[in-house]
């Protein structure tokens, strides 16, 4: 019955179209289409060939020879704004980082009030102080986000809904965001498992020159991942004794959570940023639990903005536990860099880093294939990294 009424309503609406043809034309001509894009072209080289330096969850990266894939990306965005409260946005991105899908954003945005906005579809979760514009190099002062914090998250994109409410408080803005849906969890072996029942939120306070925020997200994790192969042998063969490796898979069932606090300061020419994050698992604490933090300070001399940063992450592995099964390992990085707004819609950035994986695999190095499966690469000692990028928007 309801269906019949709906069809009837639709038919009568259609029947009215010819008489309101001009209105329909106006409606279409009032749609505001916009096409924009961003990109980064970069090259990175390091002081070692013993491990490949990566960003996020890339599978390969830089060694003593330059690699272009580490920071390079390209994004295009189309937005159709129908009126003051309805818009549709779709964004496509090309990047080597598998945590970012081909379509990081595709949503319908509703603004029923000036202070309330709803997004339905695919959005990036506000997990960090700078999470939504993380891939837009031009939007940020740093060349690359500190991996000790930003590479810790195994989740990024949400399929679901997000509601954001902004409240003016004495000349400042308080924004409350809540979201829910499903996601994809990228494990350390570059395999995706399901993230269901995602719930998360962010509380953000913006003044003229400072932003303070706290966020939290959790999801149910399920799926099958391979773990270290079991060596068997030596087995006698016609070619002599050899070792066989038996692949082992593991059924994951967990509650994964990621939380953090951050502060961003942009006052006169002073730039300062600091964040602290915490990754937690209910069932696999030795493999998952980790904390990370960084501080960054910079100063703008006109179009040139030099900056320094220090970042550190620590995971909480029990001595009896195999570190190679952990999602990430401890690492710290000291970096110095500069952003130069050399062109109208493009900047040039240089960054030099001293990455110390503290004897383990750290968070900035690609896993490698071995007889035991895909295992962390362990660089021999600290690694110096030199990076150059050009960020642009169009």
């Amino acid at each position: 019955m309801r269906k019949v009424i709906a069809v009837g309503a639709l038919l009568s609406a259609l029947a009215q179209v010819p008489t309101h043809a001009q209105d329909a034309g106006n409606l279409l001509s009032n749609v505001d289409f916009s096409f924009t894009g961003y990109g980064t072209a970069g090259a990175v080289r390091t002081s070692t060939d013993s491990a490949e330096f990566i960003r996020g969850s890339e599978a390969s990266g830089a060694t003593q020879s330059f690699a272009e894939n580490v920071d390079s990306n390209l994004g295009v965005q189309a937005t159709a704004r129908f009126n003051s409260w309805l818009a549709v946005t779709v964004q496509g991105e090309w990047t080597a980082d598998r945590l970012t899908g081909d379509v990081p954003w595709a949503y319908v945005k509703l603004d029923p009030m000036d202070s309330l906005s709803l997004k339905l579809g695919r959005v990036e979760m506000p997990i960090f102080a700078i999470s939504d514009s993380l891939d837009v190099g031009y939007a940020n002062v740093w060349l690359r986000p500190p991996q000790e914090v930003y590479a810790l998250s195994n989740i990024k994109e949400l399929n679901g809904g997000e509601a954001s409410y902004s409240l003016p408080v004495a000349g400042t803005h308080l924004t409350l965001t809540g979201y829910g849906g499903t996601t994809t969890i990228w494990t350390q072996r570059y395999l995706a498992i399901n993230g269901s029942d995602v719930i998360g939120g962010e509380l953000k306070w913006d003044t003229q020159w400072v932003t303070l925020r706290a966020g939290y997200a959790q999801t149910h994790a399920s799926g099958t991942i391979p773990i270290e192969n079991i060596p068997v042998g030596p087995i006698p063969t016609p070619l002599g004794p050899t070792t066989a490796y038996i692949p082992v898979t593991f059924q994951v069932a967990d509650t994964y959570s990621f939380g953090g606090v951050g502060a961003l300061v942009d006052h006169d020419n002073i730039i300062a940023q600091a964040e602290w994050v915490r990754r937690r698992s209910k069932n696999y604490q030795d493999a998952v639990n980790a904390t990370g933090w960084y501080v960054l300070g910079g100063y703008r001399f006109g179009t040139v903005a030099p900056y320094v940063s220090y970042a550190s992450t620590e995971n909480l592995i029990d001595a009896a536990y195999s570190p190679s099964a952990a999602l990430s390992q401890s690492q710290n990085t000291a970096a110095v860099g500069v952003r130069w707004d050399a062109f109208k819609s493009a900047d040039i950035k240089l960054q030099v880093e001293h990455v110390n994986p503290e004897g383990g695999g750290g968070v900035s190095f690609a896993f490698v294939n071995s007889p035991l499966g895909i295992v962390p690469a362990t660089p021999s000692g600290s690694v110096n990294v030199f990076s150059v990028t050009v960020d642009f928007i169009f």
Partner: protein
Amino acid sequence: MKKLLFIIAISQLLLAAGAHADELVVIGNSSAASLTKDQVSDLFLGKSQGMRLIDQPASAPIKAAFYQRVTGHDLSQVKATWSRLVFTGKATPPKELPDSAAVKKAVAADPKAIGYIEKSAVDGSVKVVLDLK
């Protein structure tokens, strides 16, 4: 001492720039209420929504002067700020129109529009919501 000289040189440059720029006003529709500098800054940096922002082209000297006076940011900073908002769908960027006459016309036609022009270009079709002396 070098630092002091540097500061003096910079402040003289700024003073010179200020003296040459036309007097600026922020304009709204004739029904619009007055705004404070902070409110205008929040709007043009995407921190608050609800108005339709009308901008001048980057080639117009008035644009850099407006953002410098209202937000304290130069144009590359403003551009970086907006790139953050645009690529996350948080706010709709200001609509760029070719000159002050076009800005005035757009603001006069839309009760939710806000823009900025030279004080000398103001007429009865729009209301000055903030005078940037």
